[in-house]
């Protein structure tokens, strides 16, 4: 009972002391809550998008594997010979069952021009029913047909996933045109799957057919891409061992779940970097809160002193202030959850492209609302807000009752603290510098982010000392230019050093985030443009139509090379073949290139600085070049030897050199084409780089290629200009999320300017009143407030741009390098920085307008009235 009364008492105190103050200063309350909302919603949206992507993958792996607890998969390439199945009959004796499947992506033609990548899953009907559940929707009655897989026995019959069927209104008997490699293939719908069981794999965007039809469609005679095994649980390890010893080294035997953990490992950098970026928004939100709370406490010191005299303990005060922060945090985070869910779908679309292009091909339609992530986002929002308020709350708790007896709210005597703070700042800078030299932790640049964070804190702590030195300088410059008000403004900022420092620090951090992201993306983009200009030297680029539609493994057959070379105007044709392989538990790409042609026509750049000619001429047999990402991801260098799985077995490859490449972050190993063909048993060609004879126009040669070859083959030919454009398009899509964060950081930066200004003018009302009393006209006060706004904006910009430079160095040389392994050439987007400067100065001064009006409206009597 007593506790309950106490609780009610505390609640009523909270309402009167805290809530009314928040309502009274509603502009600042709104700004602060907006800051938190923004941070939480970005964090949540990214979290939901990442989680959805990974759980879709997980879900699909589960559905395809069904009851299988072991899988045989190729370590290299996309399939293996089904003849190894003949040696597996002993499995049945051991109580296990097994079934082969083929999966690959194909492209479905929709309408005239459009196409859509979908998954083809070919199964062995007789064996497969034991593994997964299939349910075919019956078109006649609501009942389900138990013989659900029967449809696959019809000639060219396929079962269609529910999502695909409903989107394109497919029903039994409809024909579907597929683009596979450079061919087209027509199949017929023999049933529509429900969204249960296997039908929901790949988000319901799949076709299921019989194994032999699958082999025919994909042109993989006698090949399978996976064997699923259901082993008695107690024998899994035994069987796994035995299989490993019997099967060729080019395949692996693992539980299906290892594929999920593998993809998690692969996408970790990408995922965590997104989290880290979204965390920056939260961090700036934290500074906003810190700012608001610190200024609130400074402003209300006499009131806090009075509460102490009336009998509140310092612990009561502490909880009162923390409760205020928790309220801000809770309201902001709740709104953040709401907005986050609203923008999550957009975030998913933005990251889906990258996930699909770099890591796995899965349709990602809509976000799954994971309650755990909602909860984490909410708690993170509230938690960080509370943490950010701790300094202010401690400050408030330390207010002595004696302060009630002083009339003026006093400025925190920061002068004493500038030196110790500066020393703390240098400790932070030291930590920052040191941690920037440390290597990645499990492929995640933990220390890089730590370095950025400590650098930010260092600037925050150095701010009082910086301003103490710099404000008088500015005062001396401004006075002759702008008169008395400017000097009053500067000296007023100097007297309230504590508040000004917090305001400038907050602003700087917002701006620094903006600038550093801009420099990073700008530099990266420039680097990619440069790389494309230097490396993409062929005149035309050709690949199968289905490959352009999103199918990764699409190939031309080998005879295309000679046909293409025979086209008039073609000087040389450089074929490229690639396939995925596993290296150290992660996916990488193995490429086969004609190095004799690379030597003559192409222009790769190497880390060693050696010429293309020199390196290319040395690649033959068991030697290779690797991309920079591969080298960094796996810690290998030129001169090392790596073991790469080929169809013919594990091969030791000598790394001749490391080349710059920005195509993906999983990395390439490139060997000579002859070696590739022999050991991968793969004659196909993924793409051609075509060099046009002197005196011929690439565009007219392209026309000729189409007229001579399009009869037998469906393909796309791009000029180098078009290809470069496409690369930049993909680049921009990949960085869409970053661009969005970029925009958000502008908003947060502007919020922090407004917040700081409101706080400062609110603080100085009494001073304005006195000045007016003394005879400064309202116009002069307005000018003074606007000058204060301008000065804050100016210093925020100056320090923000400086900090932004440092952060961008960390982003480019530490964080990005360790996450993705790309060398980015540092370029400064001066125009963007100039633009930012103007915008921030403008918004600073503009956001001073309302406070300026308030201040100039301050009536002299308000000075005398203390309450």
């Amino acid at each position, binding site marked *: 009972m007593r506790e309950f009364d106490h609780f009610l008492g505390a609640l009523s105190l909270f309402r009167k002391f805290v809530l009314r103050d928040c309502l009274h200063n509603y502009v600042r309350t709104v700004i602060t809550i907006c800051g938190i909302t923004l941070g939480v919603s970005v964090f949540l949206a990214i979290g939901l998008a990442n989680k959805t992507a990974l759980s879709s993958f997980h879900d699909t792996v589960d559905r395809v594997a069904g009851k299988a607890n072991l899988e045989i998969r190729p370590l290299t390439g996309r399939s293996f010979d089904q003849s190894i199945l003949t040696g597996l009959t002993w499995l049945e004796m051991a109580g296990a069952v097994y079934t082969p499947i083929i999966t690959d992506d194909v492209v479905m033609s929709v309408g005239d021009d459009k196409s859509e990548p979908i998954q083809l899953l070919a199964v062995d009907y007789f064996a497969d029913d034991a593994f997964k559940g299939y349910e075919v929707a019956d078109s006649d009655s609501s009942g389900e047909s138990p013989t659900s897989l029967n449809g696959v026995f019809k000639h060219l019959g396929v079962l269609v996933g529910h999502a695909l069927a409903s989107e394109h209104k497919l029903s039994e008997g409809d024909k579907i045109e597929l683009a596979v490699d450079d061919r087209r293939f027509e199949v017929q719908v023999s049933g529509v799957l429900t969204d249960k069981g296997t039908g929901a794999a790949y988000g319901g965007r799949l076709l299921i057919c019989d194994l032999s039809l699958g082999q025919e469609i994909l042109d993989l005679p006698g090949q399978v891409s996976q064997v699923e095994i259901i082993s008695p649980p107690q024998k899994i390890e035994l069987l796994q061992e035995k299989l490993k010893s019997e099967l060729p080294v080019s395949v692996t035997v693992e539980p299906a779940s290892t594929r999920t953990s593998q993809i998690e490992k692969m996408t970790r950098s990408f995922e965590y970097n997104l989290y880290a970026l979204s965390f920056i928004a939260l961090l700036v939100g934290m500074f906003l809160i810190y700012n608001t709370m610190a200024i609130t406490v400074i402003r209300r010191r*006499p009131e806090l*002193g009075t509460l102490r005299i*009336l*009998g509140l*303990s310092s612990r009561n005060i502490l909880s009162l202030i923390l409760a205020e922060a928790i309220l801000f945090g809770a309201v902001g985070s709740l709104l953040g959850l709401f907005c986050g869910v609203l923008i999550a779908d957009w975030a998913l679309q933005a990251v889906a492209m990258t996930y699909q292009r770099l890591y796995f091909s899965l349709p990602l339609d809509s976000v799954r609302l994971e309650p755990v992530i909602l909860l984490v986002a909410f708690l993170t929002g509230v938690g960080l807000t509370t943490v950010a308020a701790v300094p202010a709350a401690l400050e408030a708790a330390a207010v002595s009752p*004696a302060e*009630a007896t002083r*009339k003026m709210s006093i400025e925190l005597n920061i002068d004493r603290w500038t030196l110790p703070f500066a020393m703390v700042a240098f400790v932070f800078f030291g930590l920052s510098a040191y941690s920037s030299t440390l290597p990645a932790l499990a492929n995640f640049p933990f220390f890089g982010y730590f370095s950025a964070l400590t650098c930010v804190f260092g600037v925050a702590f150095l701010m009082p000392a910086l301003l103490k030195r710099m404000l008088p300088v500015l005062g001396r410059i401004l006075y002759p230019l702008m008169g008395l008000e400017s000097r009053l403004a500067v000296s007023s900022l100097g007297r309230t050093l504590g508040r000004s420092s917090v305001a400038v620090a907050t602003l700087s951090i917002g701006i620094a985030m903006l600038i550093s992201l801009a420099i990073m993306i700008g530099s990266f983009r420039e680097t990619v443009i440069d790389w494309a200009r230097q490396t993409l030297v062929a005149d035309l680029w050709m690949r199968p139509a289905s490959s352009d539609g999103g199918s990764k493994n699409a190939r031309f057959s080998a005879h295309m090379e000679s046909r293409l070379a025979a086209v008039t105007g073609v000087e040389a044709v450089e074929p490229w073949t690639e396939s995925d392989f596993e290296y150290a538990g992660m996916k990488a790409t193995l490429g086969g290139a004609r190095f004799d042609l690379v030597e003559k026509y192409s222009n790769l750049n190497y880390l060693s600085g050696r010429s293309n000619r020199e390196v290319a001429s040395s690649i033959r047999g068991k030697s290779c070049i690797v991309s920079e990402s591969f080298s960094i991801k796996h810690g290998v260098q030129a001169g090392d030897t790596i073991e790469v799985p080929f169809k013919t077995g594990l091969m030791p490859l000598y790394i001749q050199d490391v080349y710059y490449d920005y195509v993906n972050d999983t990395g390439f190993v490139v060997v000579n084409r002859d070696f590739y063909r022999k050991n991968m048993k793969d004659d196909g060609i993924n793409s051609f780089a075509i060099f046009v004879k002197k005196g011929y126009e690439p565009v007219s040669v392209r026309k000729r290629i189409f007229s001579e070859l399009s009869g037998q083959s469906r393909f796309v030919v791009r000029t180098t200009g078009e290809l470069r454009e496409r690369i930049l398009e993909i680049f921009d899509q990949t960085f869409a999320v970053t661009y969005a964060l970029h925009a958000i950081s502008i908003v947060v930066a502007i919020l922090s300017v407004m917040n700081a200004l409101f706080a400062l003018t609110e603080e100085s009302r009494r001073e304005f009143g006195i000045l007016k009393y003394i005879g400064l006209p309202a116009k002069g006060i307005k000018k003074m407030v606007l000058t204060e706004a301008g000065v804050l904006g100016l210093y925020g910009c100056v320090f923000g741009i400086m900090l932004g430079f440092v952060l961008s160095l960390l982003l480019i040389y530490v964080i990005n390098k360790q996450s993705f392994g790309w060398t980015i050439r540092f370029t400064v987007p001066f125009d963007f920085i100039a633009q930012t400067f103007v915008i921030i100065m403008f918004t600073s001064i503009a956001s001073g307008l309302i406070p300026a009006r308030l201040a100039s409206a301050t009536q002299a009597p308000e000075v005398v009235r*203390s*309450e």
Partner: protein
Amino acid sequence: MTERILENLADERGNREGDGCLLDIVLKQVSKRYTGRHLDAVKELDLEIRQGSFVALLGPSGCGKSTLLNLLGGIDRPTEGVIEVGGLSLQSMGDDQLTEFRLKKLGFIFQFFNLLPTFTLEENVRLPLEIAGHDRAFVDSEVTELLDKIGLGERRGYLPAQLSGGEMQRTAVARAIVHKPAIVLADEPTGNLDSENGEKVLALLSEIHAESGITIIMATHSNEAAACAERSIRMRDGRIVSDERNA
């Protein structure tokens, strides 16, 4: 619940019918020097104030009146010497105990009123009782009675900014005595008021003193104000220069 009623009863009996020595104030060789100063604001002070007396502290600006009041209220700690209230040494109390002591035994009135700007007149007055954890009905009746007596009943819903200086100070007086403290410390309660309003406040203080026997210690510049008190103590440079009973 019953526990608290008993406690309240005990408190009230202690306050009102105290046998005189219960909350006597005794200062022994008390000095206070603010950090960074080289003169004592209060110097080697010996003083005894009996429970239930009304004392005026007089003296020129800067002589140490406010400092002395702060020391008595446990708001500041003396650099040297002992302050005992009701036989308990304030120095021996921790922050929590001092808070509790202020909550139960002290009321404060300031020159600048120190009302909480976001609280209405009534809420300001209720606050000490609410902090002490009294139940609503009790607080309602006590506060209504007090406000009606002081003549502020009609203004109860106003915020401090909507009140006149005199009304603000009377509100502050009400807040200082609503929880029936043993001692009220008033630092120039009339210093910021015109003479008419000043008189009203002084009359209120005298009335309260006469009715309840609360100890009142009031720092003031004005001799008229001091005339309300039973005893006048004059200070100069941190020392007592005279101490006399008023006629």
